[in-house]
């Protein structure tokens, strides 16, 4: 079984290598423009020292965009009964096909996340001190976040059976979760403004991903505890992954 799953992984990695240039360009444009505005334009409006704060969220934010792309591709594949259905006829249990996809999406997301680090250094330059970053925490946070979003993807696929539904899912669910999940503010900021809205923010998994990355880059002070964020993301991965897998299996009526 491992041999077959490795063959599936090799296929995905081969295609990833081929697509990486385009994926990297897309990610660099999004991350680069956001950072330039936050680090060099916003200070003119009085928002000082926001660049590094924003960089930390861009490390994980880029994974969200990639997951949206993968969601679209997977739903399109399912809708038109394409290659994915062939994979469900292979001599392995169906859950292992999904597990392989989750691992692949984690790797894919992690590569894009890591790519954002040198980009941030180039744009922020003196504002980003590489010696103060807790690298171990950062890589752990990025890996767990990528894994979480890969599992979350299964849940989204189970809720969108047509490509037109993906668009609605993005605007109605993913965008609010992302933007209100502290893409541009710390959880404490919103909690101090209104505790009830703060508690609501805890329902968004993005909150934990953003906060964990900020702790690794800026230190623990002013953010949710790092290990609580990791625990929530890992528990969320298991819960959403299992619910998502069961939903997709039921929707596609697989053995």
């Amino acid at each position, binding site marked *: 079984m491992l041999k077959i799953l490795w063959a599936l992984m090799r*296929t995905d990695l081969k295609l990833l290598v081929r697509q990486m240039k385009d994926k990297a360009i897309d990610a660099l444009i999004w991350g680069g423009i956001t950072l330039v505005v936050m680090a060099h334009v916003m200070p003119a409006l009085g928002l000082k020292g926001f660049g590094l704060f924003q960089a930390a969220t861009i490390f994980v934010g880029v994974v969200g965009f990639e997951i949206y792309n993968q969601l679209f591709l997977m739903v399109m594949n399912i809708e038109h*009964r394409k290659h994915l259905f062939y994979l469900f006829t*292979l*001599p392995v249990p169906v859950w292992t096909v999904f597990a392989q996809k989750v691992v692949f999406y984690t790797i894919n997301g992690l590569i894009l996340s890591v790519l954002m680090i040198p980009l941030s250094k180039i744009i922020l330059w003196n504002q980003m001190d590489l010696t103060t970053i807790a690298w171990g925490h950062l890589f752990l946070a990025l890996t767990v976040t990528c894994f979480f979003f890969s599992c979350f993807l299964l849940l989204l696929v189970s809720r969108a059976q047509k490509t037109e539904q993906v668009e609605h899912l993005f605007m109605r669910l993913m965008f609010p979760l992302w933007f209100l999940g502290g893409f541009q503010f710390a959880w404490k900021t919103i909690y101090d403004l209104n505790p009830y809205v703060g508690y609501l923010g805890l329902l968004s998994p993005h909150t934990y991903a953003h906060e964990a990355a900020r702790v690794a880059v800026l230190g623990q002070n002013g953010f949710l505890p790092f290990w609580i964020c990791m625990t929530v993301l890992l528990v969320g991965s298991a819960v959403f992954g299992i619910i998502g897998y069961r939903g997709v299996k039921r929707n596609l009526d*697989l*053995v």
Partner: protein
Amino acid sequence: MLIELQNITKIYPGNHRALNAVSVRFDTGEIVGLLGVNGSGKTTCSTILAGLHPPTSGDLLFQGKSALSDIANYRRHVGYCPQHPTLNEMLTVYDNLYFGGLYFGLTETKVKAAADRVISMFGLGDYLGKYPPMLSGGYQQRVMLARALIHDPQFIILDEPTVGLDPAIRKKLWDIILELKKLGKSILLTTHYLEEADILCDRICILDAGHILRIATKDELKSEHQQKDLEDIFMKLTAVEE
């Protein structure tokens, strides 16, 4: 007996009964033709046999044992060529075949030899570097068939394999199917072409609205209905039901 569908019923959401207590056996070295009008349950039957979708009730037996309890092992012995292209459009024709072999657990050496075998069988030599969307429907179908056979399965499911193929290629495919039969493979062929079923199949199973109207050899059918032409028998059987 290699494979048996035992009292298979399939009910889709909305209480749509696609198959109703269907029982068919597939012996070694036999071609069984599955005939029926659109919506008769042919594709549902082939997807259950491919181990893709589960039956609502009934069992799928492989060498006397339930295949559903060890579906991964069962799928190893099945080559499934569905109606719609399921090739990886981002891989070349060669890579589709190469990885298709690896996905069934073949070693690198075996997969290369197997790829060479199916490439020559289906005349794909000039198209190995092309991507599926660059190929005509007929050639995509050939690649699908080649991929379904690369791991040398015992049971082959061909769901309307000759739709859209030109007569010369269709004839060539018939020869390949007969060759596979000589090698002892069991084949399920779903088709709309009754002439094709007449030439290739040992037994014919006629499905209508999820029910089996009749399973018999061609000669039995012809003698029962006093007709020489399978098409007339098919029309008569399905018309009686309507």
